[in-house]
């Protein structure tokens, strides 16, 4: 994200109403840009004046007492921990062997069931987060300036699922995927755009984590490109054209952003 794109979004970022996917991009830009951080600080000072228009209300007195008790417990915590550690150690030495034997028997049965359950739960959670992020991202970009492509089922599954947003105004491409296939040994994944004339445009390398999740943004150095498809290939080397097998692809929707 460049400064212009960041500054376009700062007003909504400062009021925390920017879509999560865009907020992430702004946050990433701000970490390295003193100028935009300065503008954000100005906006936050300005927004904070609005808080003065809310009527001040004294909170209940017990709330302060609870807070102070919590803080003093926090301060005393490390000392209390050291004092009680010796007592706890003696008790544990006596009962631990019995507890360990019992737990092993129970755990063996539980683990087999819960591993499968957790896997399904995690898959559902990731799929839910993915679709929320995709919807938020699509809403965040004006349809007049973006193109959108997606691939994958709407229900949670093991299949590769990804979306790609081409932001023509900022000259950037944003990619997010789940269950992306891991490349073979000695090879890597590359992301490409294919024009309507069938010409490939290289975007960059994709590096999914162990679970196949991958988020990446790339500058688009081909202004006014009429895109037809987004393609992920597996390559041994990086060249101007893809030479390896196509792993997954998606067709871009019309100019209004519909796939």
């Amino acid at each position: 994200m460049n400064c212009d794109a960041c500054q376009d979004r700062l007003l909504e970022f400062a009021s925390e109403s920017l879509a999560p996917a865009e907020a992430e991009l702004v946050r990433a830009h701000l970490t390295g840009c003193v100028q935009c951080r300065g503008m954000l600080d100005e906006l936050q000072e300005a927004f904070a004046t609005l808080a003065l228009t809310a009527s001040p209300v004294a909170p209940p007195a017990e709330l302060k007492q609870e807070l102070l008790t919590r803080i003093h417990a926090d301060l005393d915590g490390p000392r209390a921990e050291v004092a009680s550690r010796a007592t706890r150690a003696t008790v544990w030495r006596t009962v631990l062997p019995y507890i360990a034997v019992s737990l092993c028997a129970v755990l063996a049965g539980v683990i087999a069931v819960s591993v499968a359950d957790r896997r399904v739960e995690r898959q559902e959670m990731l799929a839910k987060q993915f679709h929320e992020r995709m919807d938020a991202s699509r809403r965040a970009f004006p349809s007049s300036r973006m193109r959108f492509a997606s691939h994958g089922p709407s229900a949670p599954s093991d299949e590769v699922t990804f979306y790609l947003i081409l932001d023509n105004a900022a000259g950037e491409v944003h990619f997010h995927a789940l269950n992306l296939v891991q490349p073979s040994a000695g090879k890597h994944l590359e992301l490409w755009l294919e024009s309507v004339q069938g010409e490939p445009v290289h975007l960059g390398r994709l590096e999914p984590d162990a679970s196949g999740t991958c988020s990446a943004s790339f500058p688009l150095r081909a202004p006014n490109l009429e895109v037809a498809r987004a393609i992920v290939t597996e390559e041994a080397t990086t060249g101007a054209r893809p030479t390896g097998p196509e792993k997954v692809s998606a067709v871009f929707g019309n100019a209004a952003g519909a796939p």
Partner: protein
Amino acid sequence: MSADVSPSTDEELMAAIATHDAVALETLYDRYSPLLYGLCLRILHRHADAQAVLSEVFFEIWHKGERFDPTRVSARTYLVTVARSRAVDHLRAAATRTEKEGAAGRERRYASQGQDPTAGPTERTILSEEAELVRAALGTLPEAQRESLRLAYFECLTHMEIAARTGIPLGTVKSNIRQGLLKLRGALAPGMVERGK
């Protein structure tokens, strides 16, 4: 202890809190809890929610006070920003939880609060000079600017949601908010309006 050896400015209190000075936190709480509690109530509407958020805010300040950078924003802005941010998080989490409850449930929830939560017996009105200046400045804004600011800051709506609710074009909503903010800031820092134009 004489007053001049105790930390007194907000920034000095924040620096002391970063070294885990509980007295400094208590002083800051006394100074800012009415403002922050009022802000949380305005956003969340419910006393229980506002109390939970206020407590978390000060505990966060206690644990992460070193994150405050006095070269960037004032301590008051930092506190207000953290409080509003946590209130927004709370609001969105609650909205997700009660999504199935529907509009009728939402109406019931607000109705159960009875009268204006800021008008209860514990209310303590502190109209500082700055607050009066900002309120006066807010009163001079065109209605569309004032409403856009209210919806963005206290209702936590996105610009697109504000446009949809008010029927004002999106670009005008953005412009209204930006101009409104500049005028409010100008009320506290003369000269800023001119610089911002």
